């Protein structure tokens, strides 16, 4: 499943997508630890698998929460995207 958390507002589309088929539910949870804003959480899907998800209280402010990792000019690689060993995390902006 490709889970698209986030929104589209007047300024554009701001989604973090997590491919739960690739998400292995790693024991050490590198994505959860990599995010400086604590956006990533664990969630159990209805079929009993543990996967990564975005905290539901923060889903509606992704543009603001992620801005710390996305300075205006240089675009260093994002910690959450790099942390996932299976390439399950992507940002649409």
């Amino acid at each position, binding site marked *: 499943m490709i889970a698209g958390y986030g929104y589209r*507002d*007047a*300024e554009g589309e701001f989604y973090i997508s997590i491919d739960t088929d690739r998400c292995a539910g790693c024991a050490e949870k590198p994505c959860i630890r990599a995010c400086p804003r604590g956006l990533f959480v664990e969630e159990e899907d209805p079929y009993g698998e543990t996967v990564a998800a975005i905290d539901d*209280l923060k889903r*509606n*402010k992704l*543009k*603001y*929460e992620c*801005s*710390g990792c*996305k*300075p*205006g*000019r240089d675009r260093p690689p994002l910690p959450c995207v790099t942390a996932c060993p299976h390439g399950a995390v992507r940002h649409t902006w």
Partner: protein
Amino acid sequence: MITAGIDVGSRNIKVVVVRDGRVIGLAAGTGGFEQLEVARELYARALEQAGVEPGDVAHVTATGAGRNVVGFADSRVTDITAAARGANHLFPGATTIVEVGAEESRGIKTDGLGRVLDSAVNERCAAGSGSFTESMARALGMSLEEFARKSTESTARIPMNAQCTVFAESEVVSLIHSGTDPKDIARAVHHAIASRVASMVRRVKVEGDVVLLGGVAYNVGFVECLAENLEIDDLKIPERPELTDALGAALIAAGRAAG
């Protein structure tokens, strides 16, 4: 040399007349549906205040979202360029500018000499601008001044989950229904918008002196929350924060007229 800057914002139009780097006349008013007419009137009024004739003005530069409306301007610049120039004039050496207007907000990084290095914008979303606090003040049945003042009296920290003005209004109404103290609600609202503005500014990095521009700088509640969020105790705010873009445009006009 006498020049003028006209800032046609999303809601208000501001005019500043400058002679050799000093403000000699100004005027401001609501743009409404007839922006060109209002711009003309305000321009005339500012010139009158300055005691000069239109023929004395060497160059007029327009800025703001509606700058193309000002047919009689000699040139145009973006708000970002004008803001950087105006802020530099008032606070030389400042490298970070935050501008919050009626319908959008901006963060600007300069080189300390008035030149823009980087910028970030919150646009087309009422929640990142003055419209947000105005809507919430209305929902609480208070004037904006009272609303702002009350927020500074609060000591509680309630989170506000809604990021949209429409949802925030519902959230405010249910907070009222559940008996929350209006000043705590006021604080939560100001904190919410300050937080959005601060996130945007951080994209250009908060360094050196920080200047706050735009009409929302008059809102004491917002200023307090923004300072707290950015961890700065001396935000630089001009006496007339809504006029700085027009001032910047007038100064740029002087540079252009000189050739």
